[in-house]
């Protein structure tokens, strides 16, 4: 029998508040930490932030004292969990190093979710975002090489994630109308698809917020420009992924699903965690979230007459894992790199008519200027003679994207035509 949070006993809510000392945790050593421990920390930070922000929105839609105070208490604990998790990041890890880790999350989390996603359309949505985040890792890797010197990328991502071009960032800028997607249907959705959608949305939303805030902390104009440009793609990705959720779910149902997903993710990561101290933190937070699921379930029962056991699956699905996805990513690169989106659907870039709004939007943001995501590669080539890559599985699967010092979009379009 698998793990069912509703059948487990958690830590009573009134015993969950921790003092400043407990929350001000010892950070990990950035030189010693396993890259996937770092990515797990980043994911859980994003999951907790989403849960707290959702709870705030819920609270703004009710003046029911019993509901508001219960949300406030659970939210305070979630906020403490977020601090305990995010404070694991060490102060000597630069913003760009953290950025590389965020993009490693975006690559290996998205790839794993896509590989295990039961719904073909949702898998397509994940693959589409995967190739864009894969390219962001490459652009930031070149930036960190320029700003902080060699060796930083490997120190962060290890040999677990390859670094090379994905769908070129310059080609990712699409009209907002083309970022909206279809959504799953709440009565028929596989529980794993719901958890996947919530997880990727939380991760991408945190990435968007992170870049929005840290971008202007850099002095070099190129760095400021690259953060700005990629932050705009993260906005696209939040639009892309939030579309997947069925708006039919009520406030109370979504409160329950948030805590259920937190349980699922802590439980998933607890099983794989190699750092015993951090594993204990995941275990502690799981025990807290089990109680949050119970509390959210009680509110759902009282206010909507729904038995949480009727809404949730009998046990948690298979865990979400960080593991190498190199061959999967290479396969998706080879088959889907030339896609763009029109409305709700994905089409080859070459299929767009000349007057497509894609080209108008491209002209509006890229036209007649140096685009930071291209400039960073040009600057790297000018300084070091080539762009930065980290490959372990051979040359890039798209011949046109094998190391060369010129623009990417033209090559991708040509490749697609071939």
């Amino acid at each position, binding site marked *: 029998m698998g793990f069912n949070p509703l059948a487990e006993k958690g830590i009573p809510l009134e015993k969950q508040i921790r003092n400043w000392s407990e929350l001000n945790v010892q950070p990990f050593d950035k030189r010693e930490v396993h890259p996937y421990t770092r990515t797990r920390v980043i994911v859980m930070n994003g999951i907790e932030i989403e849960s707290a922000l959702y709870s705030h929105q819920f609270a703004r839609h009710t003046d029911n004292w019993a509901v508001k105070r219960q949300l406030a208490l659970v939210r305070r604990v979630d906020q403490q969990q977020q601090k305990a998790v995010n404070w694991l990041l060490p102060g000597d890890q630069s913003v760009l190093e953290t950025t590389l880790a965020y993009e490693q999350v975006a690559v290996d989390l998205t790839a794993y979710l896509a590989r295990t996603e039961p719904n073909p359309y949702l898998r397509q949505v994940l693959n589409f975002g995967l190739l864009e985040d894969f390219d962001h890792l490459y652009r930031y890797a070149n930036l960190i090489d320029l700003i902080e010197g060699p060796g930083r990328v490997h120190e962060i991502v290890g040999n677990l994630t390859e670094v090379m071009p994905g769908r070129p960032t310059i080609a990712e800028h699409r009209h907002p109308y083309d970022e909206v997607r279809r959504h799953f249907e709440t009565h*028929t959705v*596989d529980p794993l698809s719901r958890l996947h959608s919530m997880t990727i949305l939380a991760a991408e939303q945190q990435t968007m917020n992170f870049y929005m805030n840290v971008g202007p902390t850099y002095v070099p104009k190129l760095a400021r420009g690259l953060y700005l440009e990629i932050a705009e793609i993260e906005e696209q990705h939040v639009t892309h992924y939030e579309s997947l959720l069925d708006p039919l779910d009520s406030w109370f149902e979504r409160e329950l699903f948030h805590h259920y997903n937190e349980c699922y993710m802590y439980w998933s990561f607890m099983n794989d965690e190699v750092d015993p101290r951090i594993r204990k933190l995941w275990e502690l937070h799981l025990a807290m979230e089990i109680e949050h699921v119970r509390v959210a379930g009680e509110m759902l029962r009282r206010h909507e007459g729904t038995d949480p056991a009727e809404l949730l699956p009998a046990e948690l699905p298979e865990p979400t894992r960080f593991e190498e996805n190199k061959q999967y990513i290479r396969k998706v690169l080879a088959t889907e790199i030339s896609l763009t989106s029109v409305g709700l659907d994905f089409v080859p870039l070459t299929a767009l008519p000349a007057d497509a709004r894609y080209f108008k939007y491209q002209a509006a943001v890229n036209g007649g200027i140096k685009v930071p995501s291209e400039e960073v590669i040009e600057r790297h080539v000018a300084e070091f003679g080539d762009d930065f890559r980290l490959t372990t599985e051979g040359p890039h699967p798209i011949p046109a994207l094998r190391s060369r010092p010129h623009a990417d979009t033209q090559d991708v379009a040509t490749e697609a035509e071939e």
Partner: protein
Amino acid sequence: MATLTVTKDKGGVSRPEGMTVLEPAQTVPLAQLKAIGKQAGLDGLFVADLVSALAMHERHSARVALAAAEQTERPKRRKVYEKLAQLHAERTGALESLLTQLKLPALYVSPVSRAAGHLVASLAQAPLLAGSVDAEGRECMLLDVAFLLAEQSLANTEVLTSVAAAAERSTTKTALAKTAKLLAASVATFEKVRTLRKAATVDAARK
């Protein structure tokens, strides 16, 4: 036994429309839906979607009545809500059985049934404003919600009876008529909610 919360695990199936996407295994083919109208001279797709929507109304209403029973401070009112919850659940079961008789999955969720469920769920959001309403007002609000759902159930019974009457002789007509008759047998309880609401409002006004 009625299913008050439809999920994939319990057999929830649907058909994609506009913004929704489904796994192929959860998709009911259009031909299967259209087939129920063939002999009856009806638009099978419309009728299948309608029956699904009627079931979803009853399903959500049962849950809302359970929530009202949980929230009311008045023991007598609690009994009324519990009775309504039971009745809505029985009607859900009857409509799920009708879908099965029509050779459709009992837990077929039509696009319009999503809207029917949302309509009920929207009414159930009223207690979210309980903090700015006094105790008497909160009781009135719960009763209003139960009343509106009962009225819709009454109207839905009439609709199903009329559609059955419009159908040509067929197994579909027989199944529709039989279920409509079954639903009509329980309308007296819903009509009493209207009376209760009127009386409760007058009582409150007199105090």
